[in-house]
């Protein structure tokens, strides 16, 4: 046992690093313990084969908290963008791509009516997303009637909605829990446009376009800014955060997996590493997901019964797989010029395609014709691949974590299905593949220690949002066991590479908040 006046952060994922940096800047002695040999959690750049570097899981930056960027001076710590404000290019079977650029339809097979409606639609959705965005940096209100100081933050949420104005407020409240499919049907007629927008609502979730809550998931994604690519891959964000944390005085220990929390009486007083080493701490902040933290590291027996049940019932079944390819040459996508390959490519030619891709997931099976979100980051960031060679990174849905047959017998068949879809849109790509890596949610769970392999550490739906995230009674970052905090995507405001949960958690730790 060593110095007991320190704060231990479990996990050097982006939120853990943000939290560590804020705590260290506030004068805390901070020790970050990371299981892996590199920082970043699921936001890392890895070498797939010699000379080819890929963003292992997360590959586009939408939501990185501007306050965090500024407070921690990430630009000064090496965060540079290889490409900002990526356009979305939706592909169809006919080779007539649709290009979405901000709130404009740049080109593509859509009707004049849709072209006219699109801008208004996006602007309105951005106003709605702004309501969610304004909640991100706030510690969620408590669901208790006897605490007036908690009524104020709850009132602010209501005020934000009211300030939309009468028309928008009605529409916001009407659609917030709706399926995106219904809203798209009301708004547009072009299948390719509806398919592309549907993808924004379902990526990373266990939702189909006809699922309730998919509008909410869409607004969450929209609450950030346009997609961008950091130079050096997604790992560069984590490296910049780690550098900021170290500069503030935090110590980061790699290859130090935590086995369990150490309790003394009713308090967490440290952690035990898998090596058996014990490290004392006045507070422990866990960047691990809620189930890993509370079920595995703490143990349900140290929670009260109803709370333990709520944690057990947290919905966190990942459905997004990740395909990483090393390519011998730049692939050719039908209907696209080479320069366009640097944008965000989406394969979801119509909303029905997305819905049908989702169907097998309901029955714990994988999509035969999956939805793909593709980037070729080496076009914007040549250092990721040898000259004239490229890396392709794709998020693939749906691949449910809890596959009925288990993944071991299905991984190869699933990868073949994904490559077959790719080949249809980029003929010849198979022959260009030097190396391929397909990470199912089960792989993501194993490699990145995220239970269920869920990006967001838990579905991002209204039933698991704000004061309900991760579970009711623990939405203010402090866990029921004194000295223990959560700071990861399982907390408000959730996943995507944001860092806001880490920032909010640091505030809760510094205020010495208890549940």
């Amino acid at each position, binding site marked *: 046992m060593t110095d007991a006046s320190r704060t231990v952060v479990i996990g050097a994922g982006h939120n853990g690093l943000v939290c560590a940096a804020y705590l260290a800047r506030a004068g805390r002695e901070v020790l970050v313990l990371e299981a892996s040999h590199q920082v970043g959690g699921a936001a890392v750049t890895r070498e797939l084969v010699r000379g080819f570097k890929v963003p292992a899981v997360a590959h586009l930056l939408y939501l990185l908290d501007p306050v965090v960027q500024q407070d921690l001076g990430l630009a000064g710590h090496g965060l540079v963008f290889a490409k900002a404000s990526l356009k979305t290019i939706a592909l169809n079977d006919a080779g007539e791509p649709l290009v979405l650029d901000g709130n404009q339809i740049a080109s593509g097979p859509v009707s004049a009516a849709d072209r006219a409606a699109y801008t208004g639609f996006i602007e309105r959705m951005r106003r709605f997303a702004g309501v969610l965005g304004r909640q991100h940096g706030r510690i969620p209100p408590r669901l208790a009637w006897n605490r007036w100081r908690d009524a104020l933050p709850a009132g602010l949420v209501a005020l934000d909605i009211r300030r939309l104005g009468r028309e928008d407020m009605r529409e916001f409240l009407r659609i917030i829990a709706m399926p995106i499919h219904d809203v798209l049907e009301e708004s547009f007629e072009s299948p390719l446009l509806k398919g592309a927008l549907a993808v924004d609502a379902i990526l990373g979730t266990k939702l189909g376009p006809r699922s309730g809550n998919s509008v909410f998931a869409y607004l969450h994604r929209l609450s950030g800014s346009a997609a961008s690519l950091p130079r050096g891959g997604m790992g560069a964000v984590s490296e910049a955060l780690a550098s900021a944390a170290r500069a503030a005085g935090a110590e980061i220990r790699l290859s130090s997996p935590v086995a369990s929390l150490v309790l003394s009486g*009713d308090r967490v007083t440290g952690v035990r590493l898998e090596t058996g080493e014990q490290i004392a701490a006045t507070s422990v902040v866990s960047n691990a997901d809620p189930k890993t933290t509370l079920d595995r590291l703490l143990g349900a*027996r*140290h929670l*009260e019964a*109803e709370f333990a*049940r709520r944690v057990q019932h947290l919905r966190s079944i990942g459905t997004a797989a990740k395909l990483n390819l090393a390519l011998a040459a730049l692939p050719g996508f039908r209907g696209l010029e080479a320069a366009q390959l640097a944008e965000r490519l989406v394969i979801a030619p119509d909303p029905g395609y997305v819905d049908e891709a989702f169907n097998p997931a309901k029955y714990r099976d994988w999509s035969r014709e999956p939805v793909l979100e593709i980037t070729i980051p080496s076009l914007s960031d040549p250092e990721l691949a040898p000259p004239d060679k490229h890396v392709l990174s794709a998020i693939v849905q749906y691949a449910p974590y809890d596959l009925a047959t288990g993944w071991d017998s299905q991984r190869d068949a699933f990868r073949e299905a994904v490559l077959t879809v790719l080949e249809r849109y980029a003929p010849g790509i198979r022959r260009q593949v030097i190396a391929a890596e397909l990470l199912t949610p089960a792989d993501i769970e194993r490699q990145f220690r995220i239970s269920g392999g869920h990006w967001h550490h838990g579905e991002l739906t209204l039933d698991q949002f704000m004061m309900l995230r991760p579970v009711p009674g623990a939405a203010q970052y402090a866990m029921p066991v004194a000295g223990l905090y959560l700071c990861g995507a399982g907390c408000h405001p959730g996943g995507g590479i944001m860092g806001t949960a880490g920032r909010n958690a640091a505030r809760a730790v510094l205020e010495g908040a208890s*549940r």
Partner: protein
Amino acid sequence: MRAPREHYRQVVHHTPFHSRTAAANALNLWHRWRDHTVADAYFDVGLEYTALRNACAVFDLSPMTKHRITGSDALAFLNRLVTRDVAKIRPGRVGYCLWCDDQGRVIDDGTIFHLGKNEFRLCSQERQLDWLLTSRLGFDVTIREETEEVAALALQGPTSCRVLKQLGLAGIENLAPFALASFPFEGTDLLVSRTGFTGDLGYELWIAPSHAERLWDRLFEAGEIHGLKPMGTLALEMSRIEAGFIQAGVDFLPADRAIRTDRTRSPFELDLGRLVDFTKPNFTGRHALLEEQARGSRFRLVRLDVEGNKPARDAYIYDSKRTVIGAVTCSMWSPMAKASVALASVRMPWGAPDDELWAEIYYQKELKWSRINARCRVVKGAFYDPPRRRLTPAPDL
């Protein structure tokens, strides 16, 4: 045992003693306790009660919900479940306990039998399997409801020890209150605990259902000259009120059944704070109860000696300024205390020992209603508390 697929054809069942209780039930008076039929009274409530307090009486408590809890984490599991420290209930002992939800509101009370290493029985009036299974998460423990695998009788009253000796239970007089012992009985084990719900000297007898009728017959053979009578629920209810014991659904609303959360009660609000052990690092309800301890409770359970002889049935309780501050939950004329007694739940801060409280009692004589305001005195502990209840060796009358 009933065939599993036919279970719905009959939902209320006979206890293993039914052939005997039915024969003894001169009044043919029954009610439903969970899924079983039990006698309200056999021949005369007053005389059954009199037998209990002056000789002894036997009560069929087979419908009591029983759970067998085993496994390496059995003790840890129970310690997280209930508010008291189960480690203090040694093997061969029984402990009274209660358990709460996360809000610190009482779900039920019951008894834990420490049968052996990693082996416990939890008895409760209400069904608890769902809550126990919920609470099991994170523990290596096996929980089995064994209600129908164990027949049980309560033998209570001053001559109860004598009757058991007569039955051949050697050394039974040395069994201390809340202790357990096993005796051979016609080729099976008869488990005896010195426990009960009457506040008197008494025992509870636990046996395989196959031997239930033999046990009943042998008890009555042994007990006849010692005044043994069968006793129904109504006489038991009188004795438990005299003893000052609370009952789920009567004196408190089980938290898992409540829709209105302000209707439930914490252990402190049931005058059972002594069963809450905050030195345990974790148990369900601990956070809420610590908060309550700091903030103060909302209610207090009081035992009232009511002036006059009219039972204060369902009476409102007033303070000296005629403000309603609570209500009676159960009441009776106590033959042993020679007083009208009641349990009541009152709002804090009322109910301190020398508070002036009033009960508004409505009663009728030959269909004519009258109303009186009766002064109440707050009583500490049981209304009737005979020393024999605690003596070891037990008096052998």
